[in-house]
């Protein structure tokens, strides 16, 4: 542990031997294509598939009416009445957003399936749609799901301390309206499902790139009315996920239905346009913020109203309506907090988890607010942060909403990033350059990167939800030849689980990581799992390590007993070193293979009464609770944190700017593999930079997505992402195994660092930045407006 070991996964990925869903070919496999709604909101008058069915090479078709007969609507986790929402894998009766699947075709080839879509006659009657959360709340607004009665999914109020007293005590109350835009991490591999119904065994075999394959079992099983113990979920290499591949269960159900109907294995590979327009967007959120402050920069509290736009369906929502409360006060000490949170449906693509899920919106709002406070009080933004940070000696720190921060030093993190970027030199330079007409902006942000979630958080939105805590499984075996094999429930998408698990297990047995084999991907028929298994919420290093250490302990205890029996030693004095069990007292030793041999094939030599075999499965869970009556709850186990600093140069004639320097200080506790950690920090930063500067899902007034290809949806290239200067701190977690904290999401830090830098650059114009997307056109318009007033 602690070494930047080269990744075990890489050889196959570098040589073109990766195993992605689209690389799998099953005998007799056919291909599916999906017809989608061109309307944002419309009644389906009729779908005629007869012509498509007559096309040579078409195997079968499927429409919503048939889906409604064959399946049940997906489970809903909202409380009534929002849980009345009916969601099927194909639209039934009505379409609710442009891009919603309405019919599907299975054909011998991909191209024939796509040809057949053009032969389907679908007739619609458009009805009014609504694209804005606040508009969707107005009386008379189009109701997206009539069965719910309104567009409201969740309405809740968090209230801690005494916000009214804080307002009275304040020298000033800063008020702002802010907006966090829609974007998505858009992995390079789109969603993919290959389903096979095996009539002989009655098994449904699903190969997909879903990030939580076993979590979606209830959704798949209940919808298909198919027994859960005959659904086999398999994932292999996954081409990035970032949260977006969590809610692909409608496609798993659709393709499974098609496989059952056609009697063929059916493969479906999402196109990029399908992915951008209909897979999963990040939550869009509007805020009204009031911040009571003292003139010295002390923040007394935060009063917020939030409108969260979750699009046309609640596929993982309203989880996002509470997940922000993992990090209620950000890194700050204020105790008075009030949040009125409304989650609302609109005629847009459904939202779902996306790297920094729900916290990045909240943290962006806080980090933007802190800078606004600094500007309004004439203080340096670093000064306001240092004044209000939770102090290292206050750890573990309990937040107003019951979060328990597991250690960290926020002031040091900030001061390190300031040094890394040479903050004070830039501040001087900024003044000098302004005189010459150059606009330099410096933006800072320190955020929390919470990891390993407590599913108990969804009981806040609906106490009936049958989820709480978190758990993960691992299996370790030592075979009859001494080979160590490991299987985990985590289903990675590029995070290097084969590598980190090898490192953890190698340390336990005193062998080198290349002597440990970790199974690639996930197969529910092979790997141990809990229904909370998967790669999400920056949980795998922590949860995986917890499960691995538990399994290793069990295997070691048994191996020690066998070794002690052979060596006539005390099991307590057996240690594992260099592939041997060593008796500490006598120095005598036996190799692991000999222990494995006795356990599996030479079992007469076992200690009396001992069960043969040398394998253990362990399920690990952190010590989590349930929300109290005020919704106080420790919602995650670990709280990594990052400080970012960006220096930009703005061109006021175009609103365009470029990043001159970018620095990050990360602290995710003890690191298993520093190389992988740094890679995660880079990746999360690039997502935030992309989101802040380029990526945006905007709809036109007809509800059509304006960025449905990579021509319009601007994923940054190597020319847009600057070099990232990084540094690490290692403050061990007070609660997680080995002091590890989760890493990966990065909390969307660049989105606030860059917004803060843009506003800072535009100080001479007095422009205020209230949106998370720094679109040059909007910036230019803000400059022009201010110029007119000047």
């Amino acid at each position, binding site marked *: 542990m602690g070494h*930047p070991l*080269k990744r075990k*996964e*890489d*050889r*196959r*990925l*570098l*040589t*073109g*031997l*990766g195993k*992605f869903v*689209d*690389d799998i070919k099953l005998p007799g496999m056919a291909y599916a294509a999906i017809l989608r709604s061109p309307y944002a909101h419309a009644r389906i008058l009729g779908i005629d598939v007869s*012509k498509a069915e*007559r096309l*040579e*090479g078409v195997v079968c078709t499927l429409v919503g009416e048939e889906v409604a007969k064959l399946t049940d609507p997906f489970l809903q986790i909202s409380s009534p009445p929002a849980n009345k929402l009916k969601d099927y894998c194909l639209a039934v009766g009505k379409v609710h957003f442009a891009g919603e699947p309405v019919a599907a075709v299975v054909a011998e080839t*991909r*191209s*024939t399936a796509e*040809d057949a879509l053009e*032969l389907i006659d679908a007739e619609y009657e458009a009805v009014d749609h609504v694209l804005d959360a606040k508009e969707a709340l107005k009386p008379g607004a189009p109701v997206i799901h009539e069965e719910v009665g309104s567009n409201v999914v969740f309405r809740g109020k968090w209230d801690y301390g005494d916000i009214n007293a804080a307002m009275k005590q304040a020298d000033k109350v800063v008020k702002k309206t802010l907006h966090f835009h829609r974007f998505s*991490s*858009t*992995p*390079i*591999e*789109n969603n993919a499902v290959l389903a096979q119904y095996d009539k002989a065994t009655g098994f449904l075999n699903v190969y997909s790139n879903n990030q939580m394959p076993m979590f979606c079992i209830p959704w798949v099983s209940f919808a298909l009315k198919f027994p859960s113990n005959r659904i086999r979920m398999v994932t292999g*290499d*996954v*081409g*990035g996920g*970032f949260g977006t591949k969590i809610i692909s269960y409608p496609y798993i159900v659709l393709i499974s239905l098609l496989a059952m109907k056609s009697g063929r294995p059916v493969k479906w*590979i999402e*196109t*990029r346009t399908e992915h951008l327009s209909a897979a999963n967007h990040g939550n869009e959120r509007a805020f009204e913020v009031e911040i009571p402050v003292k003139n010295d920069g002390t923040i007394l509290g935060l009063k917020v109203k939030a409108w969260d736009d979750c699009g046309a369906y609640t596929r993982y929502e309203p989880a996002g309506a509470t997940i922000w409360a993992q990090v209620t006060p950000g890194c700050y000490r204020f105790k008075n907090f009030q949040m009125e949170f409304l989650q609302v449906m609109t005629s847009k693509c459904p939202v779902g988890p996306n790297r920094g899920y729900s916290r990045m919106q909240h943290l962006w709002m806080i980090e933007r607010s802190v800078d606004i406070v600094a500007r309004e009080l004439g203080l340096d933004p670093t000064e306001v942060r240092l004044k209000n940070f939770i102090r290292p000696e206050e750890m573990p720190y309990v937040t107003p909403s019951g979060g328990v921060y597991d250690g960290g030093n926020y002031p040091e993190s900030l001061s390190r990033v300031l040094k890394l970027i040479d903050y004070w030199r830039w501040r001087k330079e900024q003044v000098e350059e302004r005189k010459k007409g150059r606009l330099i902006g410096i933006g800072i942000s320190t955020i929390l990167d919470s990891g390993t979630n407590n599913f108990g958080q969804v009981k806040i939105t609906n106490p009936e939800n049958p989820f709480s805590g978190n758990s993960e499984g691992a299996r370790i075996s030592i075979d009859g030849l001494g080979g160590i094999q490991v299987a985990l429930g985590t289903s990675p*998408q*590029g*995070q290097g689980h084969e590598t980190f698990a090898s490192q953890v297990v190698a340390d336990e047995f005193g062998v080198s990581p290349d002597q440990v084999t970790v199974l690639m991907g996930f197969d529910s028929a092979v790997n141990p799992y809990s229904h909370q298994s998967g790669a999400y919420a920056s949980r795998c290093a922590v949860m995986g390590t917890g499960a691995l250490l538990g399994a290793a302990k069990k295997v070691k205890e048994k191996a020690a007993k066998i070794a002690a029996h052979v060596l006539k030693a005390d099991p307590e004095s057996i240690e594992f070193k260099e592939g041997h069990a060593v008796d500490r007292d006598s120095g005598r030793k036996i190799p692991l293979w000999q222990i494995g041999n006795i356990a599996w094939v030479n079992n007469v030599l076992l200690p009396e009464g001992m069960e043969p075999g040398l394998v253990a499965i362990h399920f690990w869970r952190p010590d989590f609770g349930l929300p109290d009556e005020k919704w106080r709850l420790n919602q995650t186990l670990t709280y990594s944190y990052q400080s970012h600093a960006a220096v930009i140069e703005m061109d006021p004639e175009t609103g365009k700017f470029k990043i001159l320097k970018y620095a990050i200080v990360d602290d995710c506790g003890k690191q298993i593999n520093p*190389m*992988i950690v*740094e*890679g995660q920090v*880079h*990746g999360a*930063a*690039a*997502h935030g930079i992309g989101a802040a500067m380029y990526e945006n899902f905007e709809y036109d007034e007809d509800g059509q997505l304006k960025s449905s*290809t*990579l*021509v319009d949806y601007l*994923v940054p*290239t*190597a*020319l847009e*992402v600057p*070099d*990232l200067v990084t540094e690490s701190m290692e403050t061990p977690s007070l609660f997680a195994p080995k002091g590890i904290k989760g890493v990966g999401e990065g909390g969307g830090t660049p989105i606030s660092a860059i917004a803060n830098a843009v506003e800072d650059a535009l100080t001479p114009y007095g422009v205020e930045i209230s949106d998370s997307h720094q679109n040059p056109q909007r910036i230019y318009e803000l400059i022009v407006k201010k110029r007119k007033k000047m």
Partner: protein
Amino acid sequence: MKLAKLTQKDDLVQIRCKVNGDAYTGTVEPRTLLVYFLRDVLNLTGTHVGCDTGHCGACTVIMDGKTVKSCMVLAVQAEGASILTVEGLAKGENLHPIQEAFWENHGLQCGYCTPGMLMSSLFLLQRNPNPTDEEIRRGIDGNLCRCTGYVNIVKSVKAAAKKMRGVEVTA
């Protein structure tokens, strides 16, 4: 009555080309894209599809010495061509220096963009054996990566350039 398929059987065309030094013959519909010819007909699944509009670069291969996005090339255009895909980089168990450099410098995470990224890097280094960071970034700007933020990819290409020039590298 069955509707006739848009492509009739006698419209199928035969393609002969060299891939990774081996001669192949395959039969495809005229509209088949090169990437699907490689993946579905020749079973060379290392070349990936990420967008089918020519923007992500995951499908990049080298055709007659130049990088092409194989989702933007019809298979019939490859008639008689010589193509290099990711599967052709290593010589047996020995990885190409670019593959080694990506491995040593953590130039990949999920690995989905990697094959295309390797091909663009190779094309760049063949023309420019000692590129600056800026030239590397320009050289790979047709290839999107969502995992690495490109930082370690740039580092990998730089290390690969050194290896290919025969300079000793310490990882």
